[in-house]
């Protein structure tokens, strides 16, 4: 029986609008356990974001495509947090 290694992956989280302002940067590098779902990144973001509850309408993109929050991440992935949009 082979024991699974607790592999770590490096991912980038892209932030926009008020999330970007709250973080003071438009991207955050995170080292997380392999296969962490995209929906789990919120709790790893810098304060004051992670103390704020994620809005129910938050959506996600993985490598510039819409993705469900349960999707597991791989090393090198770029995750974007999409707040309710207001273009137009």
């Amino acid at each position, binding site marked *: 029986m082979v024991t699974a290694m607790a592999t770590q992956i490096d991912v980038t989280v*892209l932030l*926009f*609008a*008020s*999330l*970007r*302002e709250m973080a003071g940067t438009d991207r955050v590098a995170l080292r997380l356990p392999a296969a962490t779902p995209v929906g789990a990144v919120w709790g790893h973001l810098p304060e004051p974001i992670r103390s*704020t509850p994620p*809005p129910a*309408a938050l959506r996600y*993109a993985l490598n*510039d*495509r*819409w993705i469900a929050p349960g999707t597991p991440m791989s090393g090198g992935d770029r995750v*974007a947090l*999409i*707040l*309710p*949009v*207001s*273009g*137009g």
Partner: protein
Amino acid sequence: MPAVTLTHDPLSVDALIASVAGPEHGGIAVFIGTTRREADRLEVVALEYEAYEELARAELEAVASEAEALGARVAVAHRLGRVPVGEASVAIVAAAGHRPAAFAACRLAIDEAKRRVPIWKRAVHADGTTVWKDGLSAPVS
């Protein structure tokens, strides 16, 4: 692939119309969204737009393609950065053989663009305060 433009420069409606006009078209419907001088509590002097550019471009192309499926040729331009009161933030042109398809495509494109394209704006008030329209923030200075 429909023409999609994201730009920090002022939008040219005439150029957008020219990009889709053709001899087979008899009707062209256009929508232009402009910064409005609102005043709920504070007068708005400008809106500032920010995009997740890679996905915004792909999503605008998808929206325009869906609108073109209604029987029109569609072009979309969205401005980024600061857009003062009275200037255009978005322009959508739909050209078709006749006006019902042109209106339907134009309306679908702006409605879907506003619903799902990852672009956000913040209002800039006369007193310098700003507030993001992204469902999250309280006013920040």
